[in-house]
């Protein structure tokens, strides 16, 4: 099973954002754990997916605010990436509710892929754009 773990290099140095990144990883882990068990409680997983969606939405709102305040030059691209992920999470949620196919793996891989790519490119770039110290 794919998991995401907090790594110190993820830290971008803004306390609130790092705190939420860690929280998010916790919620995602909880969701994945709930869906992993055979015959897991589908409703609980659906609820957790909704919770992740809400947390990610709020987190992006804060991140975009910080970027706006610091006049980050790639806010547009970064925000597009945010919106795309929110759209994807919502599709996964809908598919899970519909019960059409097992989406846990999709959820896990999409998130870990996103986290990885997003951190490597956007968040890291933003991190570098912050004044040192």
């Amino acid at each position, binding site marked *: 099973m794919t998991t995401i773990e907090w790594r110190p290099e993820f830290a971008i140095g803004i*306390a*609130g954002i790092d705190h939420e990144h860690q929280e998010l990883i916790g919620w995602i882990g909880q969701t994945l754990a709930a869906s992993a068990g055979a015959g897991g409680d589908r409703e609980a997983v659906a*609820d957790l997916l*909704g*919770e992740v*969606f*809400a947390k990610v*939405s709020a987190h992006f709102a*804060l991140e975009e605010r910080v970027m706006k305040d610091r006049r980050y030059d790639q806010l547009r691209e970064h925000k597009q990436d945010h919106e795309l992920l929110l759209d994807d999470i*919502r599709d996964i949620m809908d598919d899970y509710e519909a019960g059409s196919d097992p989406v846990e793996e999709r959820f896990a891989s999409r998130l870990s892929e996103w986290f990885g790519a997003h951190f490597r490119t956007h968040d890291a770039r933003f991190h570098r754009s912050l004044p040192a110290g």
Partner: protein
Amino acid sequence: MNVLKRLLRAIFERLESGLDAACGPRFNPLVQLGAIGWFLFWLIAASGIYVYIFFDTGVEQAYTSVEALTHDQWWAGGIMRSLHRYASDGLVVVAFVHMLREFAMDRMRGVRWFAWVTGLLLIGFIYVCGITGYWMVWDQLAQYVALTTSRWLDALPIFSESISRNFVNNAGLSGRFFTLMAYIHIAAPLLMLALMWVHIQRYSHARVNPARNLAIAIVMALGALSLVKPALSQGAANLDALAASVGLDWFYLAFYPLIDTLGAGGLWALALGVLAVLAILPWVPPLRRPSPAVVSLDNCNGCSRCFDDCPYSAITMQPRSDGLPFAQEAVVDPDLCVSCGICAGACPTATPFRRATALVPGIELPQHGIAALREKVQAACQGLAGKPGVLVFRCEHGAAVRPPAAGAAAVIDVPCTGMLPPSFLDLVITRKLADGVMLAGCHEGSCYQRLGIDWTEQRVAALRDPYLRDRVPRERIAVSWANPVQQAARTAALDGFIAALAEGGRAAAAPAGAGKPAWRLPGRGLPAGLRQGVQLLLLAGAMWPLGYLSATPAVRLRGEHEAVVTLTFSHAGRHQQECRKLSPEELARLPPNMRRSTGCPRARWPVYVELDLNGHTVFAGTEQPAGLWDDGPSSLFERFRVPAGAQQVAVRLRDSGRESGFDFTAAADVDLRPGQNFVIDFRQPGGFMLK
């Protein structure tokens, strides 16, 4: 009060609907009166600066410089002067209609009292500017303005000498007075600008510029009026005479003739009475407002979206108080919150998909909680039987929603469509709780909560946070903006939307623009190309009364064969007690630095005066000395209209406190020309001067 308000409201709503059809809701002048006021202010300031360059402050220069400006350079200075006048007249109209409309729409109670009261003060400033402006020209109208305003001000007990005495005759008039007028005429607009800024302080995103094509149309209409009917002076002022009549600018001076019937004191009472009644209106009755929005810190990460969207600047972002590692938190000022809920609509945690934890958003209205809203949505959608079925979120201030058939639409009332988080639309559409969602708000150009409609449209179009996510099909989301009298448009929009959903396609596309707009019924009324023309025609029509009332009709100041006798003085009566040597005991009581050999009590006798014309006493009065210690001069300025021709004038004055008899007398037989101003003045030394 409520009946009046409802009546006015019905009138305004109908007018607005008519203008919507003619001009389009975004260019409707009635929904941007405040912004038009700002625009007129700038227009007045710009034309005023130009006119001021050529204005000279002097008794004769004031008039001649304005005449030269008007005629020698009619193509520039003349037009600027006319623009200055007509834009100022327009500002009076706009300010009063603005006030009336905010009253009719009930937008002055609650936290909006602040704009109401500062607005009243602004109207006062408009009048100070207008009156001093007319005064500066020093023509016949200026003379009327000067004498009437002075008479009005003299009724106040704060001036030790009568202001009217500056305008006794041509010889006594000082050019310095025009310097003072010019100073006030520049200072007042500057203060007014500061107050205009204060006026809109409590509104975020306050609209201070009208739609561009409306602004252009206003300049064109005022420019045309300036060419057709240039603003002119009414003959040089002449204090030695009184004109038979004078044309008034009724926008500024309509209440001036009342001074003849009410007297100066009566006019003050009327003005202050009206002002007092207007000033208490926001509390008649006080607005009973639902509880203000509340912040849940556990769900707030300080993203400041609510701060960005609050139309009333009721939310501030402040340092975190609960120890969580975020920098800020939202704080609601309950005194400024109007409970519109727009903040909840902006909160990213207000999403109905949250189920593992309680659905408590970072900010929401206690009476219109987001969790309760989710339940309402689920209940309402279960009642939908139509194919297709539409869920309508309806703003309390807009037109009603009348479904074409039972079960075709379910309605949820909200304080403002801006209260709805976009993810609710996502939930209803993608989970197929309904086939479509309609956002039914109030008037498009003038949202009751100011920004609810703008934010709602922009969120749906993914132009403003929080975005409605990209993959939610916009053809299943409709907007309908209609005030209560635009019921037909509202019903047509709902019917049209249901029909479009049944066809499964976009029957009527939203106007092209950035983002992904919602479905809307194409606006009825004039084609867009014609609107500009109609708007111009409407404004041109409004120019006729503006031009007419700015100088006509005239008021009669005297009969054809009448002259004026002015009785005036500023004279200090004699001291009530003579100076005397102070006794040693009295001296000892005084502080050492104030000891002097003689003491002179300061109080003076009042001055008593009588005037006879042709043997009849027309005036007998006692004028009290000015000053807190009764040590100032007594002053008088009274005018009498008399038949022209032979007059026997006799005048007597007593200033020594004696019981009977007079200290000064004078008499003369005079032959008065019609319109002549015969002045009886008193100076010391010299006594009475009759001429």
